């Protein structure tokens, strides 16, 4: 999209994706979006990439709409129906409605041989002997699956020349690739840097729930986990605010330090999905650091094409007080633990039920 090679891309429709968090290097993503002539974004939230959209089509949430059937063909195949439980609260439309209306207006009506989603779902369900009425009641139709491996009694389930799982692959050798998987050490972090690791917390889903009013009560931001000894060597303590700065100068934060024995000394860790820039994401805006923002490089596996993103290195830049060199210690836990004697009983009581205070009590 940036170079126009191998062919120019002029228009883009984004749906059910958060470009600046699910792809590394949002600065590069931004350049790609800026190179477009036209970008339509369909979303339920004012996510970061919507600021680069020419048109935003607001979709209603999953509790307010039908969607296409969810069909899963694993060991126990099932069909699941998503159906609205409340009418849309705002002036928003379901994705199927948006797709059909766009199609009709572009003269593509013949590809939408149905007018309502119920009609579409009914026909799909009828083809496997189910009805929409039934599915509305059960929500789910589970089929008896075949056992995955036990079922293969006469021949091997693996479509390989040997019929076995291949550790050594002739086909790869013929293609001039390494036929045997071999560990190749990744570069070590340079002096003063840590390898940036990222992962999930059970409270949040990808980068899409950080703005949720209930979930944000329980996890409003991420923290940067730093090995306790490594933090001490840097003069950092739990609760300190730092910026994360990567090997290419990309920055994210501020984010709170969590000095812990749960991580090795050469790595730091943050939970994915924080560090939203979009002001419309009112609760999540400016909270924590974004791993994607710090992933200005990635490694590609030459065989599978899988992307390795844990090849970025960050240093921790302590936030300094304005005009001074002293480390800023905003809202340290200790201070909150011991409210000033002048505080009213109401404020004391309120403070005692904040997450930090509750943790402290135990």
């Amino acid at each position, binding site marked *: 999209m940036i170079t126009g090679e191998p062919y120019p891309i002029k228009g883009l429709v984004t749906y059910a994706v958060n470009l600046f968090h699910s792809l590394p290097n949002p600065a590069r993503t931004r350049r790609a979006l800026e190179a477009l002539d036209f970008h339509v974004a369909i979303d339920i939230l004012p996510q970061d990439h919507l600021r680069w959209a020419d048109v935003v089509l607001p979709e209603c949430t999953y509790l307010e709409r039908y969607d296409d059937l969810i069909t899963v063909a694993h060991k126990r195949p099932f069909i699941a129906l998503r159906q609205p439980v409340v009418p849309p609260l705002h002036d928003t439309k379901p994705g199927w409605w948006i797709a059909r209306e766009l199609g009709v207006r572009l003269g593509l009506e013949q590809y939408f041989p149905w007018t309502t989603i119920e009609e579409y779902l009914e026909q799909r369900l009828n083809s496997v002997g189910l009805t929409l009425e039934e599915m509305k009641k059960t929500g789910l139709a589970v089929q008896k699956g075949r056992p995955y491996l036990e079922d293969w009694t006469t021949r091997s389930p693996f479509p390989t020349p040997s019929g076995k799982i291949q550790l050594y692959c002739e086909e790869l050798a013929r293609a001039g690739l390494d036929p045997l998987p071999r560990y190749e050490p990744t570069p070590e972090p340079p002096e003063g840097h840590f390898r940036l690791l990222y992962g999930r917390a*059970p*409270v949040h889903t990808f980068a899409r729930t950080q703005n949720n*009013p*209930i*979930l944000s*009560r*329980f*996890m409003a931001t991420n923290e940067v986990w730093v090995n*306790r000894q490594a*933090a001490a060597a840097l003069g950092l*303590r*739990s*609760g300190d605010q730092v910026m994360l700065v990567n090997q290419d100068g990309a920055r994210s934060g501020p984010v709170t330090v*969590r*000095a*812990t*024995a*749960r991580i090795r000394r050469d790595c730091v860790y943050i939970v994915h999905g924080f560090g939203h820039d979009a002001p419309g994401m009112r609760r999540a805006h400016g909270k924590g650091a974004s791993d994607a923002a710090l992933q200005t490089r990635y490694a590609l596996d030459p065989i599978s094409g899988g992307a390795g993103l844990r090849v970025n290195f960050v240093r921790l830049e302590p936030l300094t007080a304005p005009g001074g060199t002293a480390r800023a210690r905003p809202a340290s*836990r*200790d201070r909150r*633990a011991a409210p000033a004697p002048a505080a009213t*009983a*109401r404020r004391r*009581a*309120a403070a*005692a*039920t*904040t*997450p*930090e*205070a*509750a*943790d*402290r*009590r*135990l």
Partner: protein
Amino acid sequence: MPRYGMAVDLDRCIGCQACAVACAVENDVPEGFFRRRVGEVTAGDGPGDLRLAFVHMQCYHCERPPCVPVCPTGATYVTRDGLCLVDYDICIGCRACVTACPYGMRYPHPHGFVDKCSLCDHRLAAGRLPACVEACPTRALIFGDLDDRASPLRQAIAAAARVEVDRPEVGTRPKFFFLNARVTLAEARGEVGATLARREAGEGAP
């Protein structure tokens, strides 16, 4: 009459806060306050020694609740089923109970009364489980009748390798049990007199 209580099996808890989310929604808990939440504590000093536990914070529905005798209006009371409840119509919001609770499990509701976990008495009356118990994806939360040996609660307590209540020395006899904790509550709180319970006990202490 049943004697209701609860337990958490910490071998099953994954700290997802689904219980706390369900609680906040079910009981319309205002933002910034909690009837129930789950904290995370670790102990130990590195590989091989590290232990993690989730600390469940809610009213323990004590057998000898210190919040009851201090209430000037009788708004806080214990039901015949062993639930410690607040009558919001009588409560004057004086917060004597907030001070008296040694666990800090009560909060002053912005509407002028004091609130806390009710074990979802409104759901129990309808034959349903507390919202937190129903929402738990790993079935780590167990509700039941302590006087009934066949209740899931009694069975879980009997089967647990370790059973702990919070601060037994204060004599409140909590009816909330921590099962199979890898970090004891005493460890989680830290030593008496020390700067208590930062997020991770013993970690990053100043």
